């Protein structure tokens, strides 16, 4: 065993103390279910293990990515790695003994404060798994806090299938229906939404930036529709966009969900950090962990997990969520990244997400055979591009080492491009790859 802790003499002394000759004798496992075979996994040195796993990782292609679609890449400063990898943070447990975990508790309190500042809502939890599970939890929250019985939530028809599928699983237990309302030219069709809604709706969800990369122009009107039917208004967004955008509370959001891993976490095959904030009214129905400020016996400010009676380890089947292990370490990293940026850095990063995609669209639009963006409006990171055979274009670009994706929008299919601070200097490669497809610049 590579992390063997006992010398032979120590092991013998311990066996002696417990009165057996072999640790195997301590296993009270009937022979009928004993495992006598082998897994067939060969042990290897640390160096060989690294060579094996890193060797596999190097098997993936070397590409410039313009993918987005729910997972976004921003440059994370080195200091975030160095600090978050400190073992006192990385290897610690959930803060059930607050006297020896003040450091992490304070960091989570600061994360919550950041989310409160960005959303304008009164309460933020310490994390959910990702934006999709946060949306699922929002639907369950709506179900719990809604005065009248409601068994439907409304989501835009542009909600990505991946997110919808998670929502379907979350709403399956309490038998909440998930219905879509129409979008038009890429954004919410408020009139159509008003037609779709009724008093059985517990929650209306809209996202900004939305799945087409557009900033919704009138979420206030969406909120009004929800409000008219006593439905919760849930807004999906992310922590970078919120640096620039109006705080959702200002236009009536009751719940904000989304992605906070746009801070602190670069592209890592979809790993995320679910953001969850809501109005203070729902405090005792919030899913997940909350950190509060209090006092210790010496009268000093101290932090602690609070309102734990909402949680599964105490409330069991009546808990506000089954979540136990969450994404605390990523919340720590997000808070670090935000502090590193400061308000001007965060605004600047967000503005890059506005100008980067619009500049790219302008260049793509100038190419024969491409129109970008497909929809008018203000884009954030992403936009759709129209062309004759999107799938063929994607294939062509792959050969050029450029990763793009297609998006189905009703009966149409488009290219989607995502531009952030980390790939905007490679837009040349994208434009060249597109230009090289059939036509030319």
């Amino acid at each position: 065993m590579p992390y063997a802790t006992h010398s032979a003499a120590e092991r013998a002394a311990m066996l002696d103390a417990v009165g057996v000759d072999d640790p195997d004798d301590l296993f009270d496992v009937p022979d009928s279910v004993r495992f006598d075979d082998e897994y067939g996994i060969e042990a290897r040195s640390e160096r060989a293990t690294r060579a094996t796993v890193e060797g596999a990782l190097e098997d993936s292609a070397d590409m410039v990515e313009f993918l987005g679609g729910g997972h976004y890449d921003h440059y994370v400063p080195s200091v975030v790695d160095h600090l978050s990898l400190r073992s006192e943070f990385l290897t610690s447990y959930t803060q059930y003994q607050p006297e020896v975990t003040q450091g992490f508790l304070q960091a989570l309190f600061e994360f919550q404060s950041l989310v409160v500042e960005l959303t304008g809502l009164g309460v933020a939890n310490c994390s959910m798994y990702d934006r999709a599970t946060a949306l699922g939890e929002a639907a369950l929250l709506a179900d719990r806090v809604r005065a009248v019985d409601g068994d439907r939530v409304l989501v835009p028809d542009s909600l990505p299938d991946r997110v919808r599928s998670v929502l379907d699983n979350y709403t399956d237990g309490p038998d909440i229906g998930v219905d879509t309302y129409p979008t038009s030219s890429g954004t919410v069709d408020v009139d159509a939404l008003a037609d779709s809604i009724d008093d059985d709706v517990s929650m209306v969800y809209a996202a900004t930036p939305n799945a087409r990369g557009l900033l919704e122009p009138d979420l206030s009107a969406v909120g009004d529709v929800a409000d008219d039917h006593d439905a919760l208004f849930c807004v999906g967004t992310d922590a970078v966009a919120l640096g620039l955008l109006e705080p959702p509370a200002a236009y009536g959001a009751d719940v904000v969900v989304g992605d906070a891993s746009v801070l602190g976490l670069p592209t890592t095959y979809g790993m995320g950090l679910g953001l969850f904030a809501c109005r203070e009214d729902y405090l005792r129905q919030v899913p997940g962990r909350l950190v509060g400020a209090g006092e210790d016996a010496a009268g000093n400010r101290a932090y602690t997990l609070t309102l734990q009676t909402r949680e599964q380890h105490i409330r069991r089947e009546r808990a506000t969520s089954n979540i136990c292990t969450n994404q605390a370490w990523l919340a720590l990293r997000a808070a670090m990244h935000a502090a590193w940026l400061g308000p001007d850095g965060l605004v600047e990063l967000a503005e890059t997400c506005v100008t980067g995609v619009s500049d790219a669209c302008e260049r793509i639009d100038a190419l024969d055979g491409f129109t970008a963006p497909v929809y008018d409006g203000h884009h954030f990171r992403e936009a759709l591009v129209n062309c004759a055979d999107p799938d063929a274009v994607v294939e062509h670009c792959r050969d050029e080492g450029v990763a793009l994706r297609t998006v189905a929008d009703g009966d149409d299919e488009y290219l989607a491009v995502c531009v952030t601070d980390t790939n905007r200097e490679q837009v040349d490669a994208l434009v060249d790859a597109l230009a090289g497809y059939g036509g030319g610049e």
Partner: protein
Amino acid sequence: VPHQQARWFAGEQYEPLLSEKRTETVEVDSSLPDDLTRDELELPAPAEPELARHYTHLSQMNYGVESGPIPLGSCTMKYNPSFTEDIAAHPGNRVHPLRDDADKQGILRLCHELQDALATIGGMDAVTLQPPAGAAGEFTGIQVAKAYHAAEDDERSEVIVPESAHGTNFASAAMAGYDVVELPSNENGRVEVDALRAAVGSETALLMLTNPNTLGLFERDIGEIADIVHDAGGLLYYDGANLNSLLGKARPGDMGFDVMHFNLHKTFATPHGGGGPGQGPIGVRADLEPFLPTPQVRETDAGYETYAPAQSIGRVHEFLGNWLVLVKAYAYILRHGDEGLERVSETAVLNANYLASQIDYEVPYGPFHHEFVASADADAADVAKAMLDHGVHPPTTKWPEIVDEALMTEPTETESKARLDDLAAAFDAVAATDPEDLAETPTATAARRIDQAAAARTPRLSWHALDEE
């Protein structure tokens, strides 16, 4: 100089909030129209040197596995090998999940190999890696079971959970829409087979068990238990939280379990990160495979490819959960191999038994495996606080409730004999302390005892709440 236990930290300290140090307010001037943007943004704005000191100081007020032992029962707080962090930092992880399969062969290969390794370790036929945590794995497993029953036109309404089970079992079952039937333990701390027989019926979708259970006891009647559940058309769910006691020794699949989850952050030593991320892959027997989440990974002549199982329940996470946890856990498995993994469990069980033999508290149930539950003759929470003053982290307290003033203790295999002796000395020093004096503890920690009830009565959950005072 006497050999004192090293204290990871002693004495009071205080680090202001970043917002108390320096905040800046910027007026937002954007190319976007004003009605879309905020007017201003106020946030902390430390220079990088101050940022570094802030978090360095906070870390120094925090106790991790590299500070000392964390013998929290059911949490498996073992040493997290640092080389796995280097693998996680490899640029080959920086792959977007929406790439074409052909362009992410390295990632898919690792997924496939890890699926196989976990299936072998669990004795399962198929594995999905997707659930982002243990509780998410439970929920996923229950949804898979539900889909299975639905496909058989055999919808059921109940999940049976022993009283000593983890809280997540109850919560996950409820979240999936099931009624929870709680099963009492027998006087030996195990499932009461007759009670189970009485509880099981045509509404039984699942029995959820952890084995060894939360008292560290192996459910020796597992064969009979499985038969009872299966005979009633129910499925058997294995809660993998305690798998660290069985590596190389027994497999849930061989015991008759149909679905199980793995806690990679427990058994396979990925760091807990102050609460997460973890990862909770699930394994299933062959006839449940069609219901697994999408995508799965398979190997073809052309390489690895993703696919949707025929009757998939869909997704429980937008992508694949916490990728970096997966890759670290796989590295841990490869590093150990068969023999190393078996030795992990043997040593974990030896360590628990040795520690129990050295402490002055009674351990009412046995024979136990990788964890034991001692009974304090004082308030268990007070015992825990007093242990902090001895420079160690205490066990899980007051749970499972089946033991009075429970001290649920899991030292794990990475503690040395000397550390176990230190832990025992801390237990025993507290046991020898007048219970009334325990209430004054801890005194050697960054904060003194915190009034959690008061904090919950007046929730102050952000720096804004403090500003308002």
